[in-house]
């Protein structure tokens, strides 16, 4: 886990400091609904709940729910 965090932070630092900057007036497309994450929140919530019960792995999307209904 610690290695993954180090790699993650290095990548974040590299991108934040070295990648191209996009000015606020260039962000019209970025603000449009289909580019938001998740594009359909209700779809993501429903699928994630089912997949976490039926499959052996979970996480990675950043959401934290309570309980599982799968005992």
């Amino acid at each position, binding site marked *: *886990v610690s290695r*993954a*965090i180090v790699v*993650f*932070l290095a*990548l*974040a630092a590299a*991108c*934040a*400091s070295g*990648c*191209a*900057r*996009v000015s*606020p007036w*260039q*962000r*019209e*497309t*970025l*603000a*449009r*609904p*289909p*580019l*938001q*994450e*998740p*594009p*359909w*929140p*209700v*779809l993501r*919530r*429903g*699928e994630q*709940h*089912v*997949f976490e*019960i*039926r*499959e*052996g*792995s*979970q*996480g*990675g*999307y*950043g*959401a*934290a*729910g*309570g*309980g*599982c*209904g*799968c*005992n």
Partner: protein
Amino acid sequence: MVVVATPALAAAQTSAEASLRVYQDDDAVRVWSPGARVQTTLGERLTIELDTSIDALSAASVDVTSQASPRGFEETRVEGGARASLAFGATRSVSVEVVGSTENDYDALRVGLGTRVELARRNATLDARWTGSFDVVGRAGDPSFARDRRGQRLVLTFTHIVDPRMYLDVAVDGELTWGYLASPYRYVPVTGPADPEGAPLYQLPEAVPGRRAALATLARVRRALGRRWFAHVEYRLYGDSWGVWSHTGTGALALALADDHVVLGLQGRVYWQGAASFYEAHVVDDGGGAPAWRTRDRAFGGMRSVAASLAADWWPGDGAVTSAPRLTLAVTLVRFTWLDFPLQRGRDAVITSAALVVPF
């Protein structure tokens, strides 16, 4: 995961959401899940969110995941959550979250702390969130059975604006759980050496290690393909200390119509998973004793799943979508395939979801 505020959330001071999800599969399992959510911003710095949901499950046939009532059962799970986020200036915020749920054989409590900072002239967002879990595992019909299950989870999410048409998201999600991690209902059948594939001679309770460390990493690209078309592509790699590895690929295509007041989407997901090191469809009693760790939970066997979704968003009216109600409808078809689970080789399911978000 909210790494960049959506236009709707950014514009509305208060919004309310009602949702309904229905899960139905070909093993006669049906789950109705109504939910409600309210979010409001106070004084432009403090955002409060409250939500609740219910899972009302009925299984008319044998559900081999939950073997508490092999002739079929009904149960209800109730969840409630509260979140508060406090902004410091335009680029920093901290948040706290409490989520609890209860059902007849499982009580869960999650406490979360998070922070978010925008970097590089708001071209990048770094979000960190810690969650502690304090759960109690019970057993239906046995009020004296109560086992603790604890966990800690750290999620780091980095979002970068690559160019005026593209986002890049990278997430690292590490979780450590300990305590009672088995199911009180699950048993592993034991067969004799003369007929290893035959009828079980007896059954042993499931036994799994008392700790599990898991790490999931995800990379996602969100890109506008033109004036109307948009694509999301993501890959997740997961591994844990029980030997489970999985690969998940998801792709979505969205079409925006009527000045973004209608968005239609198609999403596909494929999932491949290797079995836990101690997964056993059955154990052979050859006189050498039973393995210390053993499970027949099909969720820890080798498996695949394929899902396809259709989604539609509608913001009625002629004004900006940021101030209009949002109606979402979605349907997902899923095929689960278990590679080494004799009782059930696969299951087909339909998940239907609807949500209405009204800003005030």
